[in-house]
């Protein structure tokens, strides 16, 4: 008995060792065909899997589509190296190091927290990165990290300017109450309001905070109700947003105030959790189109999603990451067009520089199949797409009510409170 246990144990260790040594063996494989290599890391397991898993699926599906039907970028197939980072800062650092070692031309992350953990490694090596969910700290001041979409602060500003132009009728300053998730998703909105509230002509009367796990926000909403706001702006994810709106409904705060949501919150899951009757009329901004919208890129995305990951159909994050992959392909195409394949083939620091200056920074009016706002690079602003659309929940359906609204660039590094 004792012996058998030992044998099993030794076997386990041997197995672990063998698996650990495998990469050494596979490293000396045969010379590969002419491909363009990119790295993508998503938090497909762990704390943020609810967003990371569909996003990773979309990234892979899109590359498969590009390789199968478009023949890659500028005729070169794309080799995608995808890794799961488990929403773990230490893991994402090693992931990005692996991308650099393997000769990837650029890398992408899904969540802003994972990008913030890996961006200095990349910045120090001049390895260009693209984050789909972003925060100002990633690219203010601009270095080698780019943002695919407007950040949560941009959401807030775009919503506020839409509100001032189209909804607000009175002459006094509207009173905004903020309810923020206790992470950069929430506080990005606060920082943007802090920087631009005067310019927009709005007044921030209170800032409240909630946890992602909240089960009741009656307390904070009671205080908010007492201060009699005109707008309740929530920058958060669907589940806590649903709890807040439900509580606001119970308290009689909503309907009454205007509720605005950042793009992390306004998804179908919100409608499901809170109930369509309760969230009726809630506004929100979103940087991509909706499922089923009539844009050129929709048909292929829907087809691939149905074939490969049917459970993700209807998930908004899927669109984001599908578009992210397409943008990376476009960057590669532009770069190959400008400097040729050979300058990029090595995947070393020269190739990265070439890709950044001749690929990313030459992006011009790329429309991503109409899936999200136009992609442009403007000097000094590392956000590639700067526009959102305003949506409203009507009869349980998240319906667009505006065209693309561009969010202004905020130079956060000029403010003392932003730090350096």
């Amino acid at each position: 008995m004792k012996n058998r246990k030992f044998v099993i144990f030794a076997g386990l260790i041997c197995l672990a060792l063998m698996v650990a040594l495998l990469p050494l063996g596979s490293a000396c494989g045969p010379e590969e065909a002419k491909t363009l290599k990119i790295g993508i890391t998503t938090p497909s397991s762990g704390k943020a899997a609810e967003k990371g898993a569909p996003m990773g699926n979309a990234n892979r599906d899109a590359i498969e589509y590009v390789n199968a039907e478009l023949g890659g970028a500028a005729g070169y197939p794309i080799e995608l190296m995808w890794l799961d980072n488990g929403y773990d800062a230490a893991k994402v650092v090693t992931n990005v190091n692996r991308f650099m070692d393997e000769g990837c031309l650029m890398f992408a992350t899904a969540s802003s927290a994972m990008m913030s953990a890996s961006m200095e490694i990349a910045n120090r090596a001049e390895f260009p990165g693209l984050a789909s969910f972003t925060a100002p700290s990633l690219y203010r001041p601009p270095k080698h990290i780019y943002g695919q979409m407007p950040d949560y602060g941009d959401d807030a500003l775009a919503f506020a300017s839409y509100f001032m132009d189209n909804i607000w009728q009175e002459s006094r300053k509207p009173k905004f109450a903020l309810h923020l998730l206790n992470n950069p998703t929430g506080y990005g909105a606060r920082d943007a309001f802090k920087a631009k509230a005067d310019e927009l002509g709005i007044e921030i009367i209170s800032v409240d905070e909630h946890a992602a796990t909240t089960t009741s926000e009656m307390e904070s909403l009671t205080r908010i109700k007492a201060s009699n706001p005109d707008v309740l702006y929530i920058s958060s994810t669907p589940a806590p947003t649903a709890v807040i709106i439900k509580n606001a409904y119970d308290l009689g705060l909503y309907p009454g105030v205007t509720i605005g949501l950042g793009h992390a919150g306004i998804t179908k899951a919100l409608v499901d959790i809170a109930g369509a009757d309760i969230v009726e009329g809630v506004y929100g901004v979103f940087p991509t189109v909706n499922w089923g919208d009539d844009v050129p890129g929709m048909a292929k995305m829907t087809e691939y999603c149905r074939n490969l990951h049917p459970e993700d159909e209807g998930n908004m994050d899927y669109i984001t990451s599908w578009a992210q992959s397409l943008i990376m392909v476009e960057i590669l195409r532009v770069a190959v067009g400008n400097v040729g394949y050979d300058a990029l083939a090595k995947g070393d620091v020269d190739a990265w520089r070439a890709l950044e200056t001749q690929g990313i920074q030459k992006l011009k009016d790329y429309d991503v199949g109409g899936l999200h706002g136009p992609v442009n690079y403007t000097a000094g602003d590392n956000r590639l797409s700067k526009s959102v659309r305003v949506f409203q929940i009507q009869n349980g359906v998240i319906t667009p009510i505006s065209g693309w609204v561009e969010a202004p660039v905020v130079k956060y590094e000029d403010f003392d409170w932003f730090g350096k």
Partner: protein
Amino acid sequence: MAELLQYLISGLAVGMIYALIALGFVVVWKSSSVANLALGQLVLFSAWFTYGMLVQANFPLWLAFPLVILFSLALGWVIERLALRPLIAQPILSLITITLGVAYFIEGVVTLIWPKSVAALPRFFPTQPIRIGPAVVSQEYVWVAGISLIVFVLLTLFFRYHRMGIAMRATADDQLAVQACGIPVTRIFSRSWMFACLVAAIGGILVSSIGGITYGLVETGLKAFSVVILGGLDSFIGAIIAGPIIGLCENLGGGYLTPIIGWAGVKDIIPFIIIIIVMIIKPYGLFGEVRIERI
């Protein structure tokens, strides 16, 4: 005044949710002195299973709920039999770590079966809030509070009067003596895990009916720790009283301190400050059994 009443009522309501999840923790601790770190994952798993039965398989309620109960009992039995049973008589730290392993495993299973990461259960309770004077409370919370109380009463009666319950308490006290009396200790452990999973399932269903099914359920499970510490790790009455105390402190503290301090989110830290204070003043919780040691 209206605000105060509102804070009190919402504090009590949300506190009962914490209490319910804490009960699941106490069951295991009371019979085997094992800290169950997989509690949050059990809550998550059973919430998803309920989703699978009610939404994906589209079973009616009368069929789905018994299935969920059967499932959670089976889950408890399996966990005890496969993970904890082999470690009987090993250091308690190894037992705690193994629940950590179980937690990761369950998390993986959940991702595997339900890659869709956020979902909603159908609405069980009417949306019309109940008015108490100037304050309101949603029916969901009232139902949760009622169900927690029922679970608490059943558990207390069981542990006080049922043969098995008494045997469980005796096992926690002195395993050797219990074995000498001819009580099968392994069966006791197995039952206690089954109960714990059952309570976790009830908690999972109710919490996710309020806030949807997300990974956040795992951390809601963690919140139960502050409740059990305040109430005492081995006390049902402790859990059922400490839950509302924590809920009240959160609501009152959040309501009145936030405007003074100016740091939003004071509410989230209050339970933990309470823990530190309780640990210094009353180390075994309000209702926990004080252990006197002799060499």
